[in-house]
């Protein structure tokens, strides 16, 4: 396997007020994969994301980028942030321009791109998040969901290799969550590495290739989504219940409704399996 794209090695972070943000956290991101960073509130998910974008510096431990220890020089930070985009949880804390297109153009202009290229990227990014017709609207006139999408467009316009999203689903209604998931899928298909923080185990299992689990500032487990979601002790340590799809599947297997085998990754997939059984005329005891 090639060198990881980004890696935190035994990173601890102590905030200026003395509180512990991270405690000996090790975490790896491979190129082109989809990651969920799972943990309860206050587990240190945002702190991890801010380390991966170079906004925070480890108190101890190192950040490795392209297999090399990261040097935190001005040029190094520019390179890192060009390739690793971070979308914040609260859009009002990220958006500071008056107009949508102005805000989306902020990042690409900082990269020193030509105006023509910036304009092209802004249009493409806004189209990607479904806000094509809103370029000239004032940011304060947008709904929460639209502001969130502007934030994502602002990072997409920089065309990063890695996209970090802090609780992207928080505050979004169900249709908007589906839209955002579709957008993330499209990005992943284009080869963008995506890491999003969440405390929704069902979503993490359904969407991610790999899950990193955090609790109390520690990175307690990492692994393929389906394997990790089955480890109830790890989930319990992170304050999580087992995913609904796995719990239901286990019960149905115990009842003899379903045969033994790998569990589906979502309740929808499980329902599809059950409907398929009904069509084949299988009866249960």
């Amino acid at each position: 396997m090639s060198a990881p794209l980004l890696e935190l090695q035994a990173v601890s972070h102590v905030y200026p007020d003395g509180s512990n943000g991270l405690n000996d956290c090790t975490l790896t991101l491979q190129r082109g994969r989809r990651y969920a960073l799972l943990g309860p509130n206050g587990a240190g998910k945002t702190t991890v994301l801010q380390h991966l974008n170079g906004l925070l510096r480890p108190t101890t431990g190192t950040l490795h980028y392209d297999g090399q220890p990261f040097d935190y020089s001005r040029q190094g930070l520019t390179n890192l942030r060009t390739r690793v985009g971070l979308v914040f949880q609260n859009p009002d804390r990220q958006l500071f321009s008056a107009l949508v297109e102005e805000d989306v153009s902020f990042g690409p202009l900082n990269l020193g791109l030509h105006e023509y290229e910036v304009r092209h990227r802004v249009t493409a990014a806004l189209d990607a998040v479904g806000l094509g017709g809103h370029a000239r609207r004032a940011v304060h006139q947008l709904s929460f969901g639209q502001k969130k999408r502007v934030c994502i467009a602002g990072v997409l316009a920089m065309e990063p290799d890695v996209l970090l999203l802090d609780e992207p689903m928080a505050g979004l209604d169900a249709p908007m969550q589906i839209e955002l998931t579709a957008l993330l899928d499209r990005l992943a298909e284009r080869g963008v590495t995506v890491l999003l923080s969440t405390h929704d185990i069902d979503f993490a299992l359904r969407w991610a290739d790999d899950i990193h689990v955090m609790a109390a500032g520690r990175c307690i487990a990492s692994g393929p989504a389906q394997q990790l979601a089955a480890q109830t002790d790890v989930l319990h340590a992170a304050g999580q219940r087992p995913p609904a799809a796995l719990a239901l599947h286990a019960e149905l297997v115990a009842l003899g409704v379903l045969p033994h085998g790998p569990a589906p990754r979502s309740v929808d997939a499980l329902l599809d399996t059950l409907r398929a059984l009904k069509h084949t005329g299988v009866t249960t005891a």
Partner: protein
Amino acid sequence: MLIESSAYASRWRDVAPSAKALFALTGLGAAWLARSPAAFAVLTAMLVLAALLGARVQLRSYIAVALPPLGFLLLSCLTMLVGPDSDGHWRITTAMLPTIEHTALRSTAMLAALLGLVLTTPMPDLLALLRKLRTPELLLDLMVLCYRMLFVMRQAWDESITAQTARLGYRNWRQAWRSTGLLAGQMAVQVWQRAAALQTAADARVYQGTLRFLPTAYPQAKRQLTTAALAGVVMLAIALGDRL
């Protein structure tokens, strides 16, 4: 807020700000040059009608925005009616009437020119125009941040007031004073936190020390500027014809 919402709703919202600024500027110039009440009346009528019929600014909004400056103008004119006589006694005098008439008419025409611009051009477009006119970057950055923060802070303020009201924070005068005090203190912390958050967010997008934004493209700008210039020439001609 009324000015801003009118500007966004105006039919001239997407007209090049440079054209609207040129029209307003020539309007100001013509009002400065004109002398007779008739010329002022014609200029004011042209400017007001351009905003109401051309840009479709709502009459109610127009009046609501114009009333405060007109009130100020009225107050200023009334004070000019009072002056000391030869004995040093203060009394109402008509000696200043011609000056008052001239000042009032000229100010009204100038106000109409200015309202025509601000009621059809949202603040971000005005800022973009100032950027084009090479206004110092630092000043513009401050204006951009103030403008955005104004809405962020207003929302935070409104939400906090609602939250306090829901817990009977404004039940009587004493509690209202206490709640307002607490809120003001809390807002100071919020301002600080939000400023820090914006700095972090800007750093995450490779902030290099200046806030750079994409200027808006106005494909019709040349045609609109020509129209504005022609209208401006007509207004200046009226004013100059009045002088000759």
